[in-house]
């Protein structure tokens, strides 16, 4: 029986489903995909238990494909593993990428370094004249006249 077909219910804490070998493989792949560079940390360092638990808790459907993507028989070379998964098991490949990216970019420090505050609530301001009106951009569109096609003539409508 391959790891892919091993039945295992998703437990409330998904981490124990990743044995130490899989866990180490995950860290190596995360660091390979997103290494420390350009002032950003490595995903291998960022994605500890907390981040991994977070991703798998909100996406329990990723547990099984992740386990499959990390199985021992795919070898120790991250590049070869990723290439084979992409070619032969695209769903497992996609799940692995999503767990790495999801773990990394939900980390507070990573988001701060990117100056990404999350999807913030920013109330709409309607009482100020919008800059495009102030700049005369609307007037320019209007000055060019109608652009709709009049079904009665089949041609662009005439200005009224």
């Amino acid at each position: 029986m391959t790891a892919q077909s091993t039945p295992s219910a998703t437990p409330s804490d998904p981490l124990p489903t990743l044995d130490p070998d899989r866990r180490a493989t995950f860290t190596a792949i995360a660091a390979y995909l997103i290494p420390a560079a350009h002032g950003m940390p490595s995903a291998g360092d960022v994605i500890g238990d907390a981040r991994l638990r977070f991703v798998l808790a909100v996406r329990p459907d990723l547990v099984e494909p992740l386990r499959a993507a990390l199985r021992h028989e795919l070898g120790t070379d991250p590049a070869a593993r990723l290439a084979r998964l992409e070619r032969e098991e695209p769903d497992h490949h996609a799940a692995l990428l999503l767990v790495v990216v999801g773990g990394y970019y939900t980390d507070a420090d990573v988001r701060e370094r990117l100056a990404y505050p999350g999807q913030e609530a920013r109330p709409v301001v309607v009482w100020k004249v919008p800059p495009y009106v102030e700049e005369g951009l609307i007037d320019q569109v209007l000055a060019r006249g109608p652009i709709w096609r009049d079904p009665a003539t089949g041609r662009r409508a005439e200005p009224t």
Partner: protein
Amino acid sequence: MATEPADVLIVGAGATGGVVALRLAQAGFRVVCLEQGDWHDRSEYRGAELDWELTMRKQWATSPNVRALPEDYPIDESDTEVSPLMYSAVGGSMLIFAGAWPRMLPSDFRVRSLDGIADDWPLAYDELLPYYERSDRQFGVSGMGGDPAYPPGGEDPPLPPLPIGAGGLKVARAHARLGWHWWPEPNSILSVPYDGRHPCVQRGTCQQGCGEGAKASTDLTHWPKAIASGARLVTGARVRRLETKAAGLVTGATWLDRDGHEHFEPAKVVVLAANAIGTPRLLLLSASPAHPDGLANASGLVGRRLMMHPFANVGGLFDEDLESWQGQFGCSIESFEFYETDERRGFVRGAKWGLAPTFGPINAALPSRAGTRVWGPDHHLHVRSHLGRGANWGLFGEDLPDESNHITLSPTLTDSSGIPAPEVHYKVAENSRRLLDFHIERASESLREAGAHTVEVDRLMRYSGWHLLGTARMGDDPSTSVLDRWNRAHDVPNLYVVDGSCFVTSAGVNPTSSICAIALRAADHMVESRFNQQVPA
């Protein structure tokens, strides 16, 4: 269970189900609606949460096949180039729709007369105008009047326009230099408090449910009022088939509850509002010895002429931080510059462009829709160049009707109630490919003029079947159409179809404002013709 027949039984509590229920309930009709999905509480939406970009790929995916919730029906997509997208709930697909709310243009109703292809509608733009205006007030539409892409006259949108963002401003300036049309997009999203609802806070997560309640969906805008006016909405109710009498009238619907128990809901009139996949599915499921090819299908057109708008995404990347993850996902600005036919281009009809936000870091990091991906040290440069620095033109091309693009019932796949699932057979036409190629070139020009250093193109997105149209078209001739000009089935005088199935041609705009205006018009007709309505004895 009900024994007294409802005056009107509606199947589907989405956009059009809500519109028709409210109009009829307020006119004193006894309305019952059967909806396979459920109510959603706004607190369930993930837009303000850390997991937003993770859950949008599964629990809040736009494809029912990806979500695979028990209330969704699966769709066999093995023979389609585009996946149909939808949501099953009170509010229907509006729960996850983007909120862009443009109207069709006058030429859209006269494609045969003007371009010698497809068909004319049995109604015209002017006839629909008052319904657009009433519908806009019901949903709460923000926008700016006076757009020269439309005929003058009529009411302005009831609410002031939403912001167009830094990206929208750049592109608007570029269009001023190019002499090209642009306009702030009308959206069914509140810019100010309206009808007891909060205004938009620009989170940009509209396609995963609006936690503010700023984006219109009929669970907020219509159903509470319809229920207060006496409508009865049954959720978790999956309609299996419509039943008919020898006289050719429909008598009600057989449906299954969440536990699989079967019920019959009798009705004097039945209204299908299950969208252009769900409605033909039900009509085909309602085959009987008297209607061996499905109900209301003497023309043979039930399920045929499916149109889904060929779609391309053209994304520009800029040096400046535009914070392009924020802003209504509807659209900030639109362009109709190349909307109307110009045969010198080598195709007929055109596309509306809508400028949209660009999601957050997970989207920037994963392989892009245009196929770009970067791993290793330069991954960080890739993410920095994409996150918040993009502007995306979405190109909604007109899809011409073709009878070979159609829905059938799957012989093998079923929903969680054991009812046959729909199979979609759909190919993108040569006209659509040429149309998209042309528009992609022009949209790239627009973004370069706006200062984009890179333009990335996703030419024909698979997951772009947002707009489901045409599978029970209206027309004056019963041999070439399923519905009459009032959305009533030619063959079954007490059956109406009010969703996008009725579309004759697709136009090249987001369709829901038109779908809802047409549904409101049909409901008005039901009220006006109530004393002449044929009903089962």
